[in-house]
């Protein structure tokens, strides 16, 4: 379009006839011509109002050309316009006439904005509490009637949440083990305490990093997937359809995911731990410490309580991440953006939640002496 003949043959010029201004246009006033002539047209529009458009020399005009002519001279009379040109201008003038002038922007007041945001947050919090309550009630109902839980769905989600995350978890765990071993060996070497690297890495992994990093993997992989899947179902009114059919949407959609994530997370955390310890052992070997020495340090300093505490935390993280993902999906708004927003909310909410929970667990375990 931009290379059309209009680019070179089209012209506009403002003339004064009998005291009034006339804009004369000629050639092909098409999109390319409009793009070229627009600055000149705006300059003419800024002057005295144009009372007539002389279009006798215009061969053809398209929508963009018509927009330019009507912007320069919105109320001008047409002179000598060929039929096609007059028709396009008339049609465009009519179309532009249906558009109301842009209204003033809505008034903004800080108190109103703060109030709206507070009410919005409060509503979201209430809805979140309602979701937890609904999930609890459904869990109790399922405990009384286990048939309500769709075990085939639990297995499907276990596969998605668990087995498909194994390779990523193993890779991350192994690399974290290597990084921790290298980084901790530098300061410990200064004190001749390099032999305690396995203690440091082992305790870090089992008590903190294993569950936490597995939680981050779960939030990124699975929390977002839950939110996107349920968000799409919500946008497509599938969730409404379930409710109208009398099917308990929480039992069918939420519980299998919660159960699967709660079961899978300790397994993922365990894998993270094992892979991390393997990475650390490899590095210790390169530093001149044999496997037996590493094993001895680990046996001496790590307890079953460290492992059990970490795995318990992992199960809690799994439950919370899945819950946040499901809640984000089921509360998705309308339109295609809603699914993306739900997935983002699930990931951000999941990661923040597990870090906050980890802090609470740290205080709790310290008080309990675990």
């Amino acid at each position, binding site marked *: 379009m931009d290379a059309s003949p209009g680019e070179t043959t089209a012209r506009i010029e403002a003339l004064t006839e009998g005291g009034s201004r006339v804009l004369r246009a000629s050639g092909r006033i098409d999109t390319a011509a409009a793009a070229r002539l627009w600055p000149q047209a705006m300059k003419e529009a800024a002057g005295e109002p144009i009372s007539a458009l002389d279009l006798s020399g215009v061969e053809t005009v398209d929508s963009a050309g018509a927009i330019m002519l009507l912007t320069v001279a919105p109320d001008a009379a047409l002179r000598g316009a060929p039929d096609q040109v007059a028709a396009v201008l008339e*049609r465009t003038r009519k179309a532009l*006439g249906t*558009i*109301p002038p842009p209204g003033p922007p809505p008034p903004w007041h800080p108190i109103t904005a703060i109030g709206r945001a507070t009410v919005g947050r409060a509503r979201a919090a209430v809805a979140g509490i309602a979701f937890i309550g609904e999930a609890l009630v459904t869990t109790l109902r399922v405990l009384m009637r286990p048939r309500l839980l769709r075990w085939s769905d639990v297995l499907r989600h276990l596969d998605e949440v668990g087995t498909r995350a194994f390779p990523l978890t193993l890779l991350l765990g192994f690399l974290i083990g290597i990084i921790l071993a290298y980084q901790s060996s530098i300061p410990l070497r200064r004190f001749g305490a390099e032999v305690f690297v396995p203690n440091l890495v082992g305790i870090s992994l089992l008590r903190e990093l294993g569950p936490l990093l597995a939680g981050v993997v779960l939030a990124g992989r699975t929390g977002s997937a839950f939110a996107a899947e349920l968000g799409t179902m919500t946008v497509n009114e599938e969730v409404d359809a379930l409710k109208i059919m009398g099917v308990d949407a929480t039992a069918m959609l939420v519980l299998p995911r919660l159960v699967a994530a709660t079961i899978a997370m300790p397994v993922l955390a365990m894998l993270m731990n094992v892979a991390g310890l393997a990475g650390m052992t490899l590095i210790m070997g390169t530093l001149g410490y044999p496997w037996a020495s590493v094993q001895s340090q680990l046996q001496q300093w790590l307890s079953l309580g460290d492992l059990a505490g970490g795995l318990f935390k992992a199960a809690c993280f799994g439950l919370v991440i899945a819950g946040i993902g499901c809640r984000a999906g089921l509360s998705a708004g309308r339109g*295609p953006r809603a699914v993306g927003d739900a997935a983002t909310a699930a990931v951000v909410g999941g990661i923040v939640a597990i870090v906050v929970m980890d802090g609470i667990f740290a205080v709790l375990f310290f008080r309990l002496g675990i």
Partner: protein
Amino acid sequence: MADDPVIRAEGLSVAFGNRTIFKDVSFNVKRGEIFVILGGSGCGKSTLLKALIGLVPLAAGHAWLLGQEIADEDDDTRRALLRRIGVMWQSGALFGSMTLAENVELPIEEHTRLPRDARAALARSKLGLVGLGDAAERLPAEISGGMAKRAGIARAMALDPPLLFLDEPGAGLDPITSAGLDKLIKDIARDTGTTFVVVTHELQSILAIGDRCIMLDKDAQGMIAEGDPRQLKAESTQPTVRAFFRREAA
């Protein structure tokens, strides 16, 4: 050249794997006419539309749009050709994160060097043309299905294409909205000389707007009729065509 067909299709066949969707479909579309591709559900109407615009590969045959064969063109020529056609998708296919005005402005921004003011005014005039002048700042999620289809037409018309494809424009709309859309299509065709290719199975729309049509059939895996839809309704002796126009069960 003015009498050259806007679309020339010769022996078109499309297959997905071993499954033939249709075969040996041939027709011409004349300049300025509203050409309807009709047929029952699953007969390949939308697939034919997609094959014509190069989204679905042809197993056999050739299609020329505006004198150019889309499959043979290099990227630049193909892009220039695609600029001269507009497509309204079945769902409207509006971008959810953009207002209606921004949706219509997108192809203008992509294909022209018009300044921002001109692009905005042009986009608004197109929305005004389809009766959505007062909804320019709304998001697609905030409008009805009928409005989304009209906005889809406005976007398809953004660059004044001489050829417009509409996929099921009346599907899922109430009769009044659907009739309004039919009138809009007729008005645009009359006022702008745009050629329309409309895929639909809405009988009333076919009879209201169609200058000429072809009918596809799932069992025949191809075209079973061609002509003026009103004439086909009155005179066709082909059992499927008769059943279609008389709304009889097969």
